[in-house]
């Protein structure tokens, strides 16, 4: 059997980076599925891309001059509207569990 491309420890590490709590059975399934997807993605290595420029987005390709806008300020949302959707808020702040230990 070939070695998995991604270990259980990798899955736990990436889940921590992504701030995702995963149940133990989810971690196992995730490892299997990511392994099979990453194995499929290996096919990109068939291509020699040493001399190819990376492409970040299509607009630069089709309209290179159309990418930039004026650096001008404009009004954003009013604070009450911005806070209205927060799960917990107390003007002018959103509330979160404590960040700093005592």
């Amino acid at each position, binding site marked *: 059997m070939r070695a998995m491309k991604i270990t259980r420890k990798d899955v736990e590490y990436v889940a921590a980076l992504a701030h995702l709590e995963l149940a133990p059975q989810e971690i196992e399934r995730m490892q299997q599925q990511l392994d099979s997807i990453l194995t*499929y993605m290996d*096919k990109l290595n068939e291509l020699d891309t040493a001399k190819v420029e990376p492409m970040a987005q299509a607009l630069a390709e089709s309209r290179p001059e159309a990418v930039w*806008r004026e650096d001008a300020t404009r009004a954003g949302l009013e604070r009450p509207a911005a806070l209205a959707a*927060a799960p917990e808020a107390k003007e002018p702040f959103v509330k979160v569990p404590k960040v700093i230990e005592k």
Partner: protein
Amino acid sequence: MELTKLTIAGLQEQLRAGSVTARQVAEAHFERIRQRDPEVHAYLTLSPERAFAQAEAVDRRVKAKELVPPLAGVPVAVKDVIVTRGTPTTAGSRILENYRPPYDATAVERLEQAGALILGKTNCDEFAMGSSTENSGYFPTRNPHDLERVPGGSSGGSAAAVADNLAVAALGSDTGGSIRQPAGFCGVVGLMGTYGRVSRYGLIAFASSLDHIGPFARTVRDAAAVLQAIAGRDPRDSTSADVPVPDYRAVLEKPVKGLKLGVPKEYFGAGLDAEVRTKVEKGIARFRELGCEVREVSLPHTDYAIATYYIIATAEASSNLARYDGVRYGRRAPGAETLEAMYQKTRGGGFGAEVKRRIMLGTYALSSGYYEAYYLKAQKVRTLLTQDFVKAFEQVDALVTPTSPTCAFKLGEKTADPLAMYLADIYTVTGDLAGVPGISIPCGKTKAGLPVGLQLFTHHFDEARLLQLAHAFEMSGGFTL
């Protein structure tokens, strides 16, 4: 006269003649939704107050003999990844349950300025991640042609709504095929403009370099009318292009004789269903009869598109979805003692399986030590895939392909195997990666009665030619459902 079967032009004519009111049109649609949607499940939320207020305004203008805007009284459904002020917008996710956005997407604002009635928000795969609408955090949508089958995805609700006369037109979003694939599965027209043609302001971001908003309709002419209303530069989206928007309806009737069509051989290889192939080949023969020059072309990197797409799209998604952390909007998991635990519980419990899988994949592809092997590599292959299109368009005016390798599959058929689901997008992702416009139009039905979609691509910002070819095909007869 069945008010739910009208085209935009037909509806406008009746409105102007005074034989029907916008209010009656809205009522007829909500009545049909009441009858049919318990089976189809196209809508997540209805917005009758909004629709009737707009209908009233339209009727006042008609009565006063004022200038009636181009989409006056046209009932439109909006995919739930597109924000609507005050109307719940969930992106098909439990993490945004009960979220009421404080603003409208530019596309929605422009539709309403053009007189359209927003009937409600349609179901979709969570955050537009999926190809069947089974990844909705609420319920799956069903294909109106066969309720045991999926409508495609991720804009499955919008496609099903238009196919089943639950709206005259709809907005969807396309990141890897999410407009064209469900349009093909449901037998309607689905149009994705060039990247930057339609403002993304107010489109809940999945993969920003690939996301597009575009229309569904039952005819090419109607799709053109909706694109006309929503296209064009928007200062609120810096990637919306400052490129003039031509009068699309004026080009529809232009003859297609002498236009050069390329058939990319890579889109007719292994994996293409035999019946779909036969139908699409008949469609290509029709273009020949219409006087188009058809020749084989090659897009040699096509086979690498799915791998490239699922690296780039998930990398961008992992970054875009970082904002759902229970702080500014959406759901917050109760009972966490620290901020870190609150993030983890909120996201772990609020996202569905496919979204978590993609966040994990994208985070992995961007993480230290893997960035070059995956993300940078995929960006380079994206260049090669785009060059394939640019080179092809040096020889031909448009490309013609199947929209998908199969017809609508059964619910549950692909849910256990994520990779099999990803391969449903094999002919559509290329267009998103290259940023070229694409359309799916009905190309007949299989013996089992399932719609087949035919896809056309043109060069960047050449939506006019795309619509012209699609319209000529539709008008030639025999392929619409």
